[in-house]
């Protein structure tokens, strides 16, 4: 999925030299992920598309001022996140995000149903009553690796859409986009610990939804 691009220094130099082929390269490599990320913050696909366009226009205007203190992609994504949040705030979907620690609902409480573990009065308190069943259906691993089928993809997309915004944004960047944790912290202005909490809760919830679906399917 990752397209190999020239190194940042070369890209930036070519963009500043108004090299359209270089712009097309980054446009094609990053717009898909940017659209997905924008969709995690604003409410409609149309708004997301506009956020991506506005971001690229800002990138065109701003690339002469890019100082190279972060990766070019991180800088572009930061513009995207800010643009999307401003818009999300207008649409009253988004809550202020930057630098805010996860609130109680995002941080507290078990991520796995406590009923699945034995209680204090039982033989092995804190241990699984019944082990999770290994997923027989794992098309995304192994030598026979194939793309997700449509049904599984729809389950995942729906589960992703159902997450609280901050969890959705973090897990989208980390797991869908494959960004490194330090890049994500920089883009979203999160501490590493807060980023991990949001990622943890998101993955746990998505796992539970996949489990429910795959157990039925088995």
């Amino acid at each position, binding site marked *: 999925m990752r397209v190999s691009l020239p190194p940042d220094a070369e890209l930036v130099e070519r963009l500043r030299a108004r090299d359209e082929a270089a712009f097309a390269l980054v446009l094609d490599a990053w717009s898909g992920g940017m659209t997905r990320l924008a969709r995690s913050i604003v409410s409609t696909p149309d708004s997301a598309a506009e956020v991506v*366009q506005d971001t690229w226009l800002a990138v065109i205007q701003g690339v002469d001022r890019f100082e190279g203190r972060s990766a070019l992609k991180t800088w572009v994504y930061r513009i995207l996140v800010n643009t999307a949040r401003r818009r999300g705030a207008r649409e009253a979907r988004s809550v202020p995000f930057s630098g805010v620690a996860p609130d109680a609902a995002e941080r507290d409480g078990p991520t796995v149903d406590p009923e699945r573990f034995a209680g204090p009065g039982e033989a092995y308190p804190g*241990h699984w009553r019944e*082990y999770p069943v290994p997923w027989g259906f794992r098309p995304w691993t192994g030598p026979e690796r194939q793309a997700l089928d449509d049904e599984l*993809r729809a389950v995942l997309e729906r589960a992703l859409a159902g997450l609280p915004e901050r969890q959705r944004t973090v897990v989208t960047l980390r797991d869908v986009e494959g960004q490194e944790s330090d890049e994500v912290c920089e883009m979203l202005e999160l501490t590493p610990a807060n980023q991990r909490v949001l990622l943890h809760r998101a993955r746990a919830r998505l*796992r539970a939804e996949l489990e429910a679906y795959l157990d039925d399917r088995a």
Partner: protein
Amino acid sequence: MTEPDEVDCDRLVELVTEFLEGALDAPTERRLVDHLALCDGCGTYLEQIRDTARALGDLPPDRLPDPARAALLSAFRKWS
């Protein structure tokens, strides 16, 4: 010196992300690994969390609609 709490299954499931991120302190990580060595249920859980992340990585990227792409390339050209 106090020993870190034992890692039971219900605690392990809350530590998996820190474990995968390499963010656990050494004693907790050791206990978690000790627990994994003995508990198939937690091994399965950890694998499912990894599988979830992998499955997310397989979601297809969105595409920029062609008219939007053309408009942006044109904006880039005009900026020159």
